[in-house]
């Protein structure tokens, strides 16, 4: 097996594993009983799912700039999802959001 094919297999495995975590996050979103619990599934499973997806794509990235772009995308999504989850949880808990009724 040449290094190129090995890389391709590794990259495919990472992307498939990432897709699995996205599925798990969605299953959690549908199965978990309340709003706050659902946020757990979305933030954590999707973070790992996207991380693995990005890792898989990094192995095939055509250049340093493209690799940096992928990492940056992951970081931005990470910060946005963690912060978004906190804001949703806070509103839900305080019960003063727009959908408080």
């Amino acid at each position, binding site marked *: 097996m040449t290094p190129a094919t090995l890389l391709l297999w590794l990259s495919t495995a990472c992307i498939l594993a990432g897709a699995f975590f996205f599925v798990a996050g969605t299953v959690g979103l549908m199965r*978990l009983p309340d709003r706050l619990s659902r946020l*757990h599934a979305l933030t954590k499973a999707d973070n790992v799912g996207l991380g693995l997806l990005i890792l898989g794509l990094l192995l095939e990235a055509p250049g340093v700039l493209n690799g*940096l772009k992928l990492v940056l995308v992951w970081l931005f999504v990470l910060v946005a999802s963690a912060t978004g989850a906190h804001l949703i949880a806070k509103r839900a808990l305080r019960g003063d959001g727009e959908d408080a009724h």
Partner: protein
Amino acid sequence: MTRSKSTFGAILLRLLLFACAWLVIAGTDPGSWIIGAPAVIAATWASLRLSRRDGGSPRLLAALVFVPFFLWQSLKGGLDVTWRVMRPRMRIAPGIHTYRLRLTNASARVVLLDTLSLLPGTLSADLRGDVLTVHALDAADGAQLDADIAQLEQRIGTLFGERLAAPTSEADPERADVLSCRDAKVAQT
């Protein structure tokens, strides 16, 4: 006068940083700056408006230790939640848990809130004063949760070079109140 000087440096640093981020995202096509330049200026403005004076930034060496820890823990967090929801009978006992923060640095607190949400089983739900409300997928063992959060708090304290006060035990609420009053006074001045 020192304040306006440091602000100028801060503006320049942010402009540079956001311009680099734009370059990485949009590539080297000069036409992209039609959107990029206003976006970079808007991001700089927002960043300056939102940043707090008492923020402080993480130490580089401590960050090198923190990043692998964070990656490993977030992988565990993803596996944990996947394991819980994929079983035929879900293993959850969701509940609310409160924790008194010892970290005082504003930036460190933001990092703690965001990191805690990505760690196994915990979601930072609210922060009022020093009291952090955590939602846990398995809130049965409060002592374990306290220990986990305290450990993360310690790590983030190290990251920002902040020494934490001795842990305040649940059995001694008066002491905790005294501490928070002192912190509130410090924050006011």
